[in-house]
């Protein structure tokens, strides 16, 4: 029989845990809302940028040489792993790290163990994990996830593009989590560089207008492509940020629920113990009274 006081103490501690998880859930909910708004604000810009690029692509005569799209034999792979800074969000970070490890293992197998691989963690959790591995890591961009801003994402994007053009990296993969809704995240790996050109997407041929192009199509494209890549990287970071808060919200909700269930059981135990104590007391009194009468 559990002691009355012990049960009372446990109930107290479960209640305070529940309060914390409930508060964390609410904090995540509001952070999630903010993260979602910044994704939405990205939309008009993205739409317009893609439209301009499409339009230019259509007016281009033949293919142009894009240095950012050159396929080379991959001897040095860079993997950007976007994770969160903090834990308590279920399997979120573990899943992202798993996705990244799979890519790295595949690459090492393919290159017969000769290929170089650098991990660029964004977010402390990824850094903590890969620091223990024997891979090369570049920790300059760890803090990006804390308060995602386009400026910072752009810096990372530009650095990656420079390294690619200078032949340091032959391929750059980005591991991130796509935000579907607060409960569902998709863990994705995306080839950032070399850029994948999707050809044949000229559905809006009829509406084409003859623009004056200044300086010329090729040069405008050459300027727009890096902008587009920076944007896609920023998008990946924002998505991961929103997913993180979504994942934390769900896991904290679950924790609050579990605490409620635990509490139910404990209360039952507590009442049983209390009832037992009362019964014993009454029996003692009745027994004592009977002894006096007799």
């Amino acid at each position, binding site marked *: 029989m559990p002691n009355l006081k012990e049960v009372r103490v446990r109930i107290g501690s479960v209640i305070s845990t529940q309060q914390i998880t409930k508060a964390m859930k609410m904090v995540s909910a509001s952070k999630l809302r903010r993260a979602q708004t910044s994704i939405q604000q990205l939309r008009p810009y993205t739409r*317009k940028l893609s439209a301009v690029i499409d339009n230019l692509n259509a007016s281009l005569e033949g293919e142009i040489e894009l240095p950012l799209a050159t396929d080379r034999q991959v001897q040095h792979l860079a993997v950007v792993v976007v994770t969160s800074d903090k834990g308590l969000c279920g399997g979120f970070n573990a899943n992202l790290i798993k996705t990244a490890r799979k890519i790295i293992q595949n690459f090492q197998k393919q290159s017969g163990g000769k290929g170089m691989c650098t991990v660029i963690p964004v977010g402390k959790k990824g850094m903590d994990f890969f620091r223990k591995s024997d891979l090369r890591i570049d920790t300059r961009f760890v803090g990006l996830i804390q308060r995602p801003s*386009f400026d910072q994402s752009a810096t990372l994007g530009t650095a990656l593009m420079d390294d690619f053009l200078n032949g340091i990296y032959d391929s750059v993969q980005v591991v991130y989590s796509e935000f579907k809704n607060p409960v569902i995240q998709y863990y994705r790996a995306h080839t950032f560089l070399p850029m994948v050109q999707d050809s044949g997407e000229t559905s809006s041929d009829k509406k084409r207008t003859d623009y004056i192009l*200044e300086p010329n199509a090729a040069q*405008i494209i050459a300027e727009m492509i890096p902008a587009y890549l920076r944007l896609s990287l920023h998008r990946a970071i924002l998505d991961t940020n929103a997913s993180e808060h979504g994942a934390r919200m769900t896991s904290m909700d679950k924790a609050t629920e579990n605490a409620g269930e635990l509490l139910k059981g404990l209360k039952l135990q507590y009442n049983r113990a209390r009832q037992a104590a009362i019964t014993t007391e009454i029996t003692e009194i009745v027994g004592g009274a009977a002894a006096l009468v007799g």
Partner: protein
Amino acid sequence: MAMTLEILTPEKSLFEGEVTSVKVPGTEGGFEILNNHAPIIATLMPKGEVRIVQPGQKEQVFPVKGGVVEVLRNHIVILTEA
């Protein structure tokens, strides 16, 4: 027909509304966009400013860092990264 302008950055929309004149710092030289300008796509200087005039108001200045301007049927869109 009135001319409308949108200035978009990845983080927010800087301006949206009716304008009478827009001066942009094109890489091949700055130019001014007035009503019924021909369709054009032009890149912008890495460092420059967009000057706009709204009907009955004073000139407003927005600093831009590169980007692109598109004019189509009296609708101007400026895409820039901050």
